[in-house]
Each structure stands twice: as structure tokens, then as C-alpha cells.
């Protein structure tokens, strides 16, 4: 199973780097939106909470393009080809890991760019880094199966966002609160937030792992 996971992960990353569809979509979106916000606000927003909200809105909506990981398998008729060699559970875990890698990378880039463009002071750098890592991973874990559902109905556009938003609201609430503390001079402890994110994403990850084979079989 581990060999299968590694081969699937390598395959997906290789295809993404060659086709550059997901990466360019996500990066373009996050860069354009961040700079647009900078232009519109003149760099003056002020409140740590508003900065936290804007940052996570950018990361969340950038992440809504990762449904292409599954969409490509359906469009290019490779889903059954993959199933011939690997189990649905293995395929799900590999997609989840690739989704996490892409989301963390995008969140890191979007985060750094946002801090630079909006000139935001971070009073707790390690806490901020941990929250970006944990929050983006949690978002990726929770939305992977939604991406599969959206790909199976071949619905581009807003369906992925509509389906994901209620599910990810607990994560967004917690990370915005924690990030606000990082941007302000409040005493900050990330442990409760991290524990919540870990618990929530583990629960949803396990349930998604159990349910994925039921949807990823007839094409």
C-alpha cells in the first residue's frame, strides 16, 4: 500500500508540474486577489481581525481550485486505469496528501505575499506559521472528498465552493480567531486551535476514507 501511495503521489505531482493547471490557477488567483485588495485599500486596513479574515478568504478560495485533481482523472478517463492497479482507499489517501502539499504551498505563498503587500506586523511568527500550516492542511483534508463529488458530476464553477463552505466553517472560524491573535499583541496559545483542527480534520478524514470507495467506482 505504501508503494502504491508513493507512486500515486509522484504521478500526481509530476502531472501537475508538467501541465501546471492547478498550480497556475491557484497561484494566479491568490496573487491577483491579494494585489487587488492592496490596491483597493491603499494598504490601509488596520484591524488585525480584518487582515486575518481577508487572508483566510484568499487561501480558502484559492484552495477551491484543487478539485481539478479529481476532475482531470474523470475528464481524461484515467480514473478506471488507476483503479486497475490501486485500491480506492490508496487513491484517496494519495490525492489527500497531494492536496495538502498544494494547499500548504499556496497558503505559504499567499500568506507571505499578503504580509508584504499589506505591510502587516506579525507579533507571533511561529504561531502564525503553525496556523497557516495547520489550517491549510485541515482545509485540504476536509475538502478532498468534496472535490471527488464535484468531479464526478463534472460541475465546474461554484458547486465545490457551495458544498465545501458549510463543512469547512468550523476550521475557518478557528483559524481566523488564532490568526487575529498572531497579528495583535494578545497573549497567544495555539494549542487549543491546533488540537481542534487535528480532531476535526482527523474525524472528517477518516469518514471520507471510509466513504470514498462508494463513490469512486462506476465511471
Amino acid at each position, binding site marked *: 500500500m505504501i*508503494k502504491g501511495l508513493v*507512486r*500515486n503521489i*509522484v*504521478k500526481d505531482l*509530476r*502531472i501537475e508540474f*508538467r*501541465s501546471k493547471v492547478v498550480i497556475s490557477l491557484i497561484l494566479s488567483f491568490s496573487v491577483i486577489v491579494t494585489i487587488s485588495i492592496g490596491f483597493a485599500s491603499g494598504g490601509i486596513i488596520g484591524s488585525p481581525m480584518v487582515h486575518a479574515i481577508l487572508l483566510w478568504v484568499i487561501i480558502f478560495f484559492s484552495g477551491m481550485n484543487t478539485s481539478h485533481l479529481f476532475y482531470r482523472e474523470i475528464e*481524461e*478517463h*484515467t480514473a*478506471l*486505469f488507476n*483503479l*486497475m*492497479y490501486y*485500491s480506492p482507499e490508496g487513491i484517496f489517501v494519495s490525492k489527500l496528501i497531494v492536496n495538502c502539499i498544494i494547499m500548504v504551498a499556496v497558503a505559504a505563498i499567499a500568506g507571505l505575499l499578503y504580509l508584504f503587500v499589506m505591510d502587516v506586523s506579525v507579533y507571533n511568527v511561529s504561531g502564525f506559521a503553525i496556523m497557516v500550516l495547520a489550517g491549510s492542511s485541515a482545509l485540504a483534508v476536509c475538502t478532498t472528498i468534496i472535490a471527488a463529488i464535484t468531479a464526478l458530476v463534472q460541475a465546474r464553477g461554484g458547486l465545490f465552493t457551495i458544498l465545501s463552505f458549510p463543512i469547512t466553517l468550523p476550521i475557518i472560524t478557528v483559524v481566523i480567531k488564532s490568526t487575529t491573535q498572531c497579528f495583535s499583541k494578545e497573549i497567544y496559545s495555539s494549542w487549543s486551535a491546533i488540537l481542534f483542527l487535528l480532531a476535526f480534520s482527523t474525524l472528517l478524514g477518516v469518514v471520507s476514507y471510509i466513504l470514498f*470507495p462508494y463513490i469512486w*467506482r*462506476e*465511471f
Partner: protein
Amino acid sequence: MFTIKAHNISKRYSYRLFSNISCSVSTGESVAIVGPNGSGKSTLLKILGNIVSPDSGRVEYFDKMESIPAHTVIHYAGIVAPYIQCYNHLTLTENIIFAFGSVTDDAIELLHRLDMYQHKDKVLHTYSTGMQQRCKIAMALLKKPKVLLLDEPGSNLDDSGRKILFELIKEIQPFTAIIMATNDSREAKLCHRSIVLDKGIGA
């Protein structure tokens, strides 16, 4: 010994495709599904391979006389069909390494026979449709499947490709259960028997 047994399977989309079809295929046997366009050949093939569920009836699968769960059948199967493609952004070598871990001597030999060895390091989306069909045949046969599902396997192949395909099917026949959906009488003749679908009835 691998066996597929279908009992009274029926399928309908917006119209009734076929009903009450029963058949059995075992290792060493080959069945051709023939019929006019739209008669449900590909659908019957998909049902027998557990790619699609029937509306009624059941399909049973046995490996070495023991029943196996239907959802595991695809792992025993090699499939060549229009609705299955290899990864177009990878080379043939990368596709083989993805599926099997490494390029073995068997793989090299098969690629030579299919006249694909010299193209193995080119990305698949640069291939013609005939070359892509040869890739699919290679990937299915390298798996040494217990059941081979072929849906119009000779489509897009030139005469030499078709000749190699027929040779490969004859070589693998004693070791595999083969089910082929085809319009081509030359392909159908490779099989021991046929299921003829016509106006929703199989014979």
C-alpha cells in the same frame, strides 16, 4: 481458475438495453459480445467487469473456486476500452513504472512486439490514437490479468497492429478469461463463442 457467472442481468438507460442475460466465462474461455450499434455491447462488458451495476440480476466472481467480492474484480482485470486512458502527461515508461514499479524484461519484450519500444520515453499526448491503443494493450497485458476485457480492441490499429493484437490474444487465451465487445467479425472469430445482442435480447 477464474470464473465470471452472470445470472439474468438486465440494464436500462432511457430505453431498455437488454434483459435476462446469463452467461459464464472461465480461464481458458473467450466470449465475444456482438450486435448492432446501441445494442449494449459495451454496457454488458462493463457489467461483467463490475464497472457498472446491472438494474437487476447478479454477477458472481470466483477465483480458484472461491467467491470474491465484486468490487475487487477490477484488480484482477486488464481492460482495453475507449473509456480507459493511460496518463497522457506521462511517458509510456512512466506509466509502466506507475503501474508496476519498474520496467521488466517482459515489458521490454512486449513493447518491442508492439513496436512501441522506440517511443517509450515520449509523452503520451504526442502519440497518435493507434499508438495510444497499443499502449493500452501493453498496460493491460503486462498486468497478467485473470480476466481480459476488450472493447473494440482493434479500433484505430493498422493491419500490423491488428495482426500483433490477434497473436497476443491467442497466446494469452489459455491463461485468461477473455470477454470482447466488438463489431469486427475478425475479432469475434478469435473467441470460442459469442453472445449476440439484438433488440434487447441476448442469444
